[in-house]
């Protein structure tokens, strides 16, 4: 009898406790909603209709009516059909763009990790180097990049054989293919690999430009590794090489996943991307109904982006190591 009473008392107490804590949770949850409210409103009022319209337009033709307003004509899958089979360059650009991506993403991720490790270590003028390394990500975007792309001046001026952002200089390569080929010919590696390495070195400016944010993410990831781990490693006699593979790499592996995905998104959506350029040209060149074609193209492109991101995330997440934190 008494135990029953006790039980019910306990139950009552715990229920009360639960209720109180729940109300606190609810209050905190409500505050959370207030914080994210701008995004929720914007998403519902601006973004969803924009997305919806974009999908809708890709199945329509648009006719702008003189005197304001526009009219839509349903054409079904016609735009997609036109983009895939009638447009002369779309499929070709898409395939070559994807190939470029497969080559670029590992290069950018590895390069930014490498530089981040260097910038994290003790070196003279570290602050100055850091300041310099973040210049491209801030300054060489948008308008400046556009000016650079159409720039022929550098070709004339770069006497030292530097690739400096003009990007289209066959005369001014840092490494000539012949040199590397003679170096690699004894190593029995394929011609494609040689070409890949040569391309990478000659595109170094491009790669630096595109790895700014990744460097930032890696740097902050490296900062969060406790120095005590490195200390105990060096006491145990581990070399720098071993420390890198056993400590640094597993600890930054979540950052690698994030960066790989970010790099894919960034290079898919940047305006210097070949496919994006092609779609933009279609958009700029067309009047009225042709603009819809670009919409259809970019939706197809977007689906491929999602597929690529899913694939990379699935592949990489098998190797990601998460440190248990108390």
């Amino acid at each position, binding site marked *: 009898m008494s135990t029953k009473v006790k039980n019910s008392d306990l139950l009552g107490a715990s229920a009360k406790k639960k209720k109180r804590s729940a109300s606190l949770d609810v209050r*905190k949850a409500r*505050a*959370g*909603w207030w*914080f*994210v409210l*701008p*995004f*929720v409103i*914007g*998403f519902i*009022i*601006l973004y969803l*209709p*924009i*997305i919806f*319209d*974009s999908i809708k*337009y890709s199945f329509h033709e648009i006719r702008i009516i003189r005197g304001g307003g*526009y009219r839509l004509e349903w054409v079904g899958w016609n735009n997609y059909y036109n983009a895939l089979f009638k447009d002369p360059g779309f499929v070709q650009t898409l395939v070559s763009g994807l190939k470029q991506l497969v080559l670029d993403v590992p290069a950018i991720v590895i390069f930014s990790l490498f530089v981040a490790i260097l*910038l994290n270590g003790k070196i*003279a003028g570290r602050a100055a180097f*850091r*300041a310099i390394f973040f*210049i491209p*990500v*801030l*300054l060489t*975007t*948008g*308008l*400046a990049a556009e*000016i650079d792309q159409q*720039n022929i*001046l550098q070709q004339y*001026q770069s006497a030292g054989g*530097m690739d*400096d952002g003009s990007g289209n200089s066959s005369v001014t390569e840092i490494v000539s293919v012949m040199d590397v080929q003679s170096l690699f010919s004894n190593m029995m590696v394929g011609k494609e690999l040689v070409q890949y390495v040569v391309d990478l070195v000659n595109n*170094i400016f491009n790669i*630096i430009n595109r790895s700014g*944010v990744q460097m*930032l*993410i890696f*740097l*902050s*990831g490296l*900062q969060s590794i406790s120095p005590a781990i490195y200390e105990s490693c060096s006491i145990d006699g581990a070399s720098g090489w071993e420390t890198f593979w056993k400590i640094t790499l597993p600890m930054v592996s979540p950052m690698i996943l994030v960066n790989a995905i970010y790099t894919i*998104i960034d290079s*898919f*959506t940047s*305006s210097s991307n070949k496919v*994006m350029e092609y*779609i*933009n040209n279609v958009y700029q060149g067309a009047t009225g109904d042709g603009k819809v074609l*670009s919409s259809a193209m*970019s*939706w197809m*492109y*977007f689906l491929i982006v999602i597929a690529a991101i899913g694939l990379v995330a699935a592949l990489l997440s098998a190797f990601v190591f998460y440190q248990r*934190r108390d």
Partner: protein
Amino acid sequence: MNNVETAPKVKKETKNKIRVEFERTPLLERLKAKFVNLYFFQKVAVYIFKFLFLLGISFVILFPFYSKISSSFMSPEDFVDVTVVMIPRHATLSTYRAIIVDNNYWGAFTNTLLLSLACAILQTFICCLIAYGFAKFKFKFNGLLFMLVIFTMVVPHSTLQLSMYMKFRYFDIFGIFNLLGGGVTEAIKVLKEPNLNLLNTFWPLILLSITGLGFKNGLYIFMLRQYFKGVPDELEESAYLDGYGVFKTFMLIILPLSVPMLVTVFMFSFSWQWTDTFYTRAFFSQSGPTLMPSIVKVPRSLDTSYAGENMYVAAIRNTCGILILLPLVILYTFLQRYIIQGIERSGITG
């Protein structure tokens, strides 16, 4: 027992021995022992390699800027002279003067400054709010909403180019009028038409900024969320105990704490808006306010038809680029200290 007593003695003895040994060996020998060995060489070699590598990359980054700056001071004669490399022989400011006067540089500067400042401040604050909400509060659909943020980051701009244009050209979506009320639209004075044309105004970009949908805002939210997750909960709890509300805590405790991170986001959003071409082209036409992209052209007063035309035109375009980037460089030199700090403090973990 014996061991305990002798142990320090032995240690002292060896210590003395070492000192005696140390003093007996001449300085040269000592230096040799310290510096002439493989370990030291290896260390030095690695250090030199690191330093040279960083120096080389810095050179790759800075060299284009140098060549642009030097060519911007060259006079037309220098472009036909093959012997003029890197350093202008007939230095002149005429290119700068022509661009500033003819291409309405100050007009573009003021407009772009207003637009970029408005966007950057709004985006920094709004992204902070949103990121803080995602990082510190557990509510239903938190994960789902965050996925939506990532989704807005993933969708390419060009996909939405057409429909964004249409949205802001014929701005009459359901709800907006109900939400804002008639007063706001009357203030803009567009009731004559059934829908309002927001093109050639700052409104499209400001609306996108207020709702955290602006350029790369997904990235800012992601970065800030990771940063706020690293801020210890105890800080807020003690603020709550002292009677602060959630918003007061956010404004008075969290924001001042994260100034370096805020500056980083501000710098990103300011400079990306400053050099932006995508939104500027989509939302502004010739008849709209002069913005930075429209000053990139050959000024009227410069005569470019001569032998070195191609290079001269390229140099003029570069000079436009320098004039556009100059304010950003000045801003960056002032703010880079905070940005570096922001990087160091943002311990992102899984």
